């Protein structure tokens, strides 16, 4: 029987394993160093905040793996010998494979800051990081002040976590406005306000210079490049992005760039070796996507695709329309299609932006300047229906059509206040149109073609 070995039990590796099992009877082994069982990395924050126990963030009961005949080995792979189709492990005996899937995920970026390896300096990616945080910052007497470096999604999550234990946090963000490399200005500004509302000391346009030790080799303070200011702290969170976890592959003969190089079939340069999830790097970016996409959803999609290929239906990775979501403290964010920040905005891309007068709610619709074609939407504080936007993008709808039928797309809970008319009034005024909102129609929502 063919033996499939997967390195990494994250969403990518586990999805691949589940789908291979669904499609075949092959022998499946997952080797992973971090934990015995798959857990949801995206939910690590909730464990520290006490919303859930670690038990709760494991999507499958422990018996699931045995029942589905997926063997688990907790060990670290030190070397891949693809000539002999063999893996060397740190503790256990060698493991052979017929097909190998690399799903090794990412690790936090470190940019060579002085003091970056001191005690009390850490990232937030792994279960070990979570445990370390519980030691470094159990409460606000042990950790009197924390500094978080890097204004991305993980950075803001770490700030929220620390604030849940009333630990004062200084948040160093290199950009002039939070996450404005990704978000349009209006949205980014609203988030700046919200961050301050949560009593986080947000420092925009500020770079870390140095991390200073005390006599025991623990972090004592950081200094800031622009002003030379010294901020005393007991914890430094490094959250300036992630890089693929591929160091152990350096001399393996598998082609590497920043990640493991793969083609559209997720195949590496070596036969019978595939790479998926955070660690995979496309030779060429797909559409507007980046060559490495370190997000949950793409890991899951790649896992499904590679399972097809391995089970005899060789498939290209076709991720469909871009979507994503996140939560910034109390504000939920969803996006469908492409809405670019002012730094990355395409020449043809125009934006319509609406923001609620008092609440932290807003949305941005991107459309083509000439044709008026709808390109994408960002919403903050309003939930939207994935299905509907996916269809509108496929059908290449006009922005006017989207605005007219916005009620079809609303996904907020029942009885929530609705803003379509307000949004449309502004849209009409700004673009000199006279569109009237249409009533929600189940028929349109559910029919595959409108």
């Amino acid at each position, binding site marked *: 029987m063919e033996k499939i070995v997967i390195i990494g039990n994250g969403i990518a590796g586990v999805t691949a394993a589940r*789908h291979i099992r669904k499609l075949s009877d092959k022998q499946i082994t997952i080797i992973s160093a971090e934990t015995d069982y798959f857990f949801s990395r995206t939910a690590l924050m909730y464990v520290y905040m006490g919303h859930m126990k670690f038990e709760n963030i494991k999507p499958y009961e422990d018996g699931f793996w045995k029942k589905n005949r997926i063997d688990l080995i907790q060990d670290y792979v030190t070397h891949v010998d693809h000539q002999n189709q063999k893996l060397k492990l740190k503790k256990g005996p060698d493991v052979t494979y017929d097909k190998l899937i690399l799903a090794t995920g990412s690790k936090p970026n470190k940019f060579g800051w002085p003091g970056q390896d001191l005690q009390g300096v850490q990232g937030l990616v792994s279960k070990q990081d979570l445990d370390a945080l519980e030691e470094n910052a*159990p409460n606000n007497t042990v950790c009197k002040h924390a500094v978080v470096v890097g204004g991305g999604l993980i950075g803001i999550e770490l700030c929220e976590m620390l604030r849940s234990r*009333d630990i004062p946090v200084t948040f160093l963000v290199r950009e002039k406005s939070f996450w404005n490399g990704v978000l349009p200005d209006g949205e980014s500004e609203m988030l700046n306000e919200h961050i301050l509302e949560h009593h986080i000391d947000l420092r925009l346009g500020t770079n870390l210079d140095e991390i200073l030790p005390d006599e025991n080799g623990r972090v004592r303070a950081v200094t800031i490049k622009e002003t030379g200011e010294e901020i005393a702290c007991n914890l430094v969170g490094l959250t300036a992005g992630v890089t693929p976890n591929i160091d152990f592959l350096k001399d393996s003969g598998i082609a590497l760039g920043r990640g493991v190089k793969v083609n559209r079939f997720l195949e590496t340069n070596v036969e019978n070796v595939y790479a998926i999830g955070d660690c995979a790097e496309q030779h060429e970016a797909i559409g507007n996507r980046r060559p490495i996409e370190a997000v949950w959803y793409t890991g899951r*999609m790649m896992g*499904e695709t590679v399972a097809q290929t391995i089970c005899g239906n060789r498939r290209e990775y076709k991720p*469909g329309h871009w979507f994503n979501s996140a939560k910034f403290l109390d504000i*939920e964010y969803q996006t469908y299609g492409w809405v670019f920040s002012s730094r990355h905005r395409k020449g043809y891309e125009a934006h319509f932006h609406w923001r609620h007068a008092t609440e932290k709610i807003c949305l941005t619709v991107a459309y083509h300047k000439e044709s008026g074609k709808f390109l994408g939407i960002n919403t903050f504080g309003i939930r939207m*229906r994935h299905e509907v936007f996916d269809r509108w993008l496929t059908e290449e709808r006009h922005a006017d059509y989207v605005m007219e039928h916005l009620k079809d797309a609303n996904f907020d809970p029942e009885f929530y206040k609705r803003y379509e008319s307000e949004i449309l009034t502004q849209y009409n005024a700004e673009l000199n149109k006279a569109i009237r909102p249409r009533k929600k129609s189940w028929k349109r929502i559910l029919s595959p073609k409108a």
Partner: protein
Amino acid sequence: MSTYNRSMALTGEPPKALNFHQKLATLLGISGLAILCLAAFNVDFANKTLWLAISLMALFGGITWFTIAAYAHKPKGIKNDGVMFKSISSRGFWGWVAGVALTAFYIVLYFYPQYLGLAKEGDNTGVIALFDPLSKLLSGNPASQWFVYGTLYTVAILAFGIKFIWKYRHNNYEKIRTVSVMFFQTSFAFLIPEFMARLNSDTFSLPYYDLKNIWPLNYYNFERYRVNSLIDAGDIGLALLIFGILSIFVITPILTYKYGKRWYCSWVCGCGGLAETAGDSFRQLSDKSLFAWKVERWVVHSVVVFVTLMTTAVIYSFLGNDTSKYWLTKTSFLIGVAVILTAVFAWVMIYKREQLQRDAKYGAIGYFVVIMALIAFHFFSGEGNVFLFKAETLRKTYAFLIGSIFSGVIGTGFYPIFGNRVWCRFGCPMAAILGFQQRLFSKFRITTNGGQCISCGNCSTYCEMGIDVRAYAQKGENIVRSSCVGCGICSAVCPRGVLKLENGPLEGRIDSKDVLLGNDVDLMKLVNQK
């Protein structure tokens, strides 16, 4: 080596401590309870009206104050910080203390009301006497243990209802739903029955009737003394009796078809009302394992069978063989029951079989048991008894096992141990019947938003009914589960906006929209075919 002291981390204090105001508020609430306890130990309060008012106000005020201290200074949003660290909400020391205290209270209430001061002859004493003034004000009668319980129950729903509304003040669904349970408890369950008692005189008498309590939840509704007294009460009584029957066979199915069982379980019902308000801090304790789900289905459906047989037996036992007193006779009644059950069973098996899948077998077993029992009734029963037992014995057994032990002692007493919906999930026959309909014939579903789920587990953790919501959401599948009471909390706590409770067309209610997991159609078609 690190000189860092590890033990400091272990004794570290995550956000679980109460702030100053919360402590004072707790003290105030406890002083309200203390007055009741003192009264229970026969401390004689001279001015009962005053002390009762002080006690209830202290309880109410303490909880409200606690609420404000907990939420007012925080921005609106999900408030689950530290839930798993606090001993009361994570089966810690205080959780067990609360569980034991509540259980003890229920045991005394159901089985030893004399310790609360209930007097068979003469005046009440103890804590029940403390409630006499209020009871006399409302119904004109002295208090009973049930009046004491009803009052405290209502105060709990109102005060914790306010807490719940503050906690979810960003969420209109939760706010409106909670106002609804507060209203139904105060009016239908508490005030109206008391006022109805006022109408009673020597010549006119209505039984205690909480109009929103529908059979089989109020398993006693069709007992002889109630039916007689309703019939004897003339038009009003007859109207009530007809309303009772209509609510089972007409009102309930229509509302459940349109809105799912949530219209009752989390908008109207008193048990649900207490669970959603006072029990809200314990929702995360419900067991999510597949094993628990299995137990749930066996137990709750057995209760349905039990209550159906018991009620049939009770009615059967007081019907006659001719139409002189009741229009229905023993035989025609049995045939009627059998016909209704057969019609339902046939309809399900013919039209909904594929939706039931494995459960169809259990349904068939249940049906078979009931029909056999009905036949047995006919052949082996004499006057006043059914089969080998007296119908009354059957009813008493049900009242003891299900009505008292399950719904009270375990159902509420064990809130801090098994979660706040143990009764609704494992024991309530009403919930089971509504759930059966919700699963097969209702517009209600929880829609999963395409591929947005990140498998974080908040939804499953906070589902009070122990539904593993994530298992569906991460597959892009809608959630159509008979046990879902539509509390909406899974949707509220989801950080990615994945879940929406809604009523929509029956077609496509369950289908998973795999396409939206993000891959292009052809691939997903392939996956689905397998």
